[in-house]
């Protein structure tokens, strides 16, 4: 039986998302990057344009794999000052819904990402949209998009952490 013919259960997807969250929360960013396809995208649209298209709208983040790798390298260094020392984060994922085939899986989920640093706390709330691909070696992320429900970033300041 090939991977493509195996049905995907929500529980499998949830397990994958929880594992991803664990990698982010433990700052194992090199391992986290391994979850991405080499053509993968990571996007965060502006708060006032959640349907933003990076081709013509200003995004907060529009990373291809190379930029994402550079983001990881930056965050791993001691010179990403906003994140050195690193925040303590807690990526929480729920309301998971799965559509599509095993070859091209669409996932939506709600998230809250708590960020604690230097006595301060902030919370990002929103919706994830993933496109996943199943391989013999587990799921791979073809696209991850984090759409923020907050109307602006006044309470969180920036998006220096990975959502």
């Amino acid at each position, binding site marked *: 039986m090939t991977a493509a013919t195996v049905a995907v259960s929500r529980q499998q997807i949830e397990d994958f998302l929880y594992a991803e969250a664990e990698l982010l929360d433990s700052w194992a960013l090199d391992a986290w990057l391994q979850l991405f396809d080499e053509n993968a995208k990571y996007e965060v*649209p502006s708060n006032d344009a959640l349907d933003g298209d990076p081709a013509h709208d200003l995004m907060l983040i529009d990373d291809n794999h190379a930029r994402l790798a550079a983001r990881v390298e930056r965050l791993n260094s001691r010179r990403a000052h906003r994140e050195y020392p690193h925040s303590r984060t807690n990526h929480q994922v729920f309301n998971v819904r799965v559509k599509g085939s095993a070859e091209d899986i669409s996932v939506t989920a709600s998230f809250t990402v708590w960020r604690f640093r230097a006595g301060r706390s902030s919370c990002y709330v929103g919706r994830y949209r993933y496109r996943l691909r199943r391989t013999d070696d587990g799921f791979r992320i073809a696209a991850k998009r984090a759409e923020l429900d907050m109307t602006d970033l006044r309470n969180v300041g920036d998006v220096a952490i990975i959502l």
Partner: protein
Amino acid sequence: MSTGIETRRPKEAEMRPQLPIVDDDPATQRFRVHRSAMTSPHIHRAEIERIFTKSWLYVGHESEIPEPGDFVRRPIGGRPVFMVRGAKTGNVNVFHNTCTHRGALVCRQDSGNSKVFQCFYHAWTFDSEGQLKGVPDRDAYAGGVNFDELGLKRVARVESYRGFVFASFDPDIVDLPTYLAGAKDYIDLVVDGCGGSVEMVRGTNQYSFSANWKLLVENSFDGYHAESTHDTYFKYLVSIGTDLRGGVSGREVDLGNGHAVIEYSSPWGRPVAKWEPLFGEEARTEIERLRADLVARHGEKRAHAMTEVNRNLLIYPNLIINDIMAVTVRTLYPSAPDAVDVTAWALAPTDEPAPLRHRRLDSFLTFLGPGGFATPDDLEVLESCQQGFTSGGVEWNDISRGMGRVPMANDEEQMRVFWRRWQHQMGAAADLAGAQ
């Protein structure tokens, strides 16, 4: 009341003569700013009265409201106002966002198009020119109420330059071109470099952080900090094949009335029009064509300034137009001595071809914005300064770099231009004794 027992020396503040917070000493070529300028609640209140109600403040760009009835709402100087294109006149109107009846906001969406603005309290209704058109049960009012005078209140002065709409709460302020002084030429460079017509890209960065707004003014055109603070950005540039050898070099220009600019060459690319590896090989021809067009239209010298030269421009007091790896327009407003609200946009040529627009936005995100590789570190360093101030022990910030030579882009003369104007406008409200 004296107890007759003196157990302590007089405090320094008690002995301090009426000295300005900005200590500008051309004789010794030393320039200092007392840190109370960043921490004092008195200074913060005086800034609202003396600076933010007495300056031209950027509201928005005309391209945001192209059609009659189009509107955007904005806080300027901490006050909610909205900008709407009048359906009758086609003019850009800027109104205080408050019902003339009992005060509620009449514009309650961030942007949109509307024929009328209706207060949801008693349903008083105003048109896009501000006229009061509807009052339920109007017959109940006697003759003393003149409804013609109860239209939406316009902000005292509204003018625009090259599509940039400014408003002032001061009816007696000089006209906008006089106010902008030498900054006009630099707005021209940005707009003409974009082919003469610009628009704001959809999508806004709205973020806040815990530092005094003037620290971000300084930081927005601080050439000195780039290498040390933004090391990870330059490493990224190297990783994609950018040649850093040219470095950053250029000069500072005092544009009058507190406005100033640094202009300099840099290793990074510019969508108009300096190629870099980030843009990809296929973009070379297009970018060379853009440049050739500008040379044909404006001559080699001006085209060089538009294409190869970066500009970090301050329009006093709080508008930044940085024409760097992309063009960003940002406003800064203090909500407290140690809190600033930033709103930032990307400016681009109107009808920019799709591949160029995409490249421009991609270039923007490498450095700029709350998710960029540089802006978060600027927030961190400015918050760090603000926290450092509370430690005490050190009273003054030094801003003397480059005094005694022709100021370069990584000197601090542009900041001194800002601070001198600030001190002038604050007057007696910014003396050391009053700020404590």
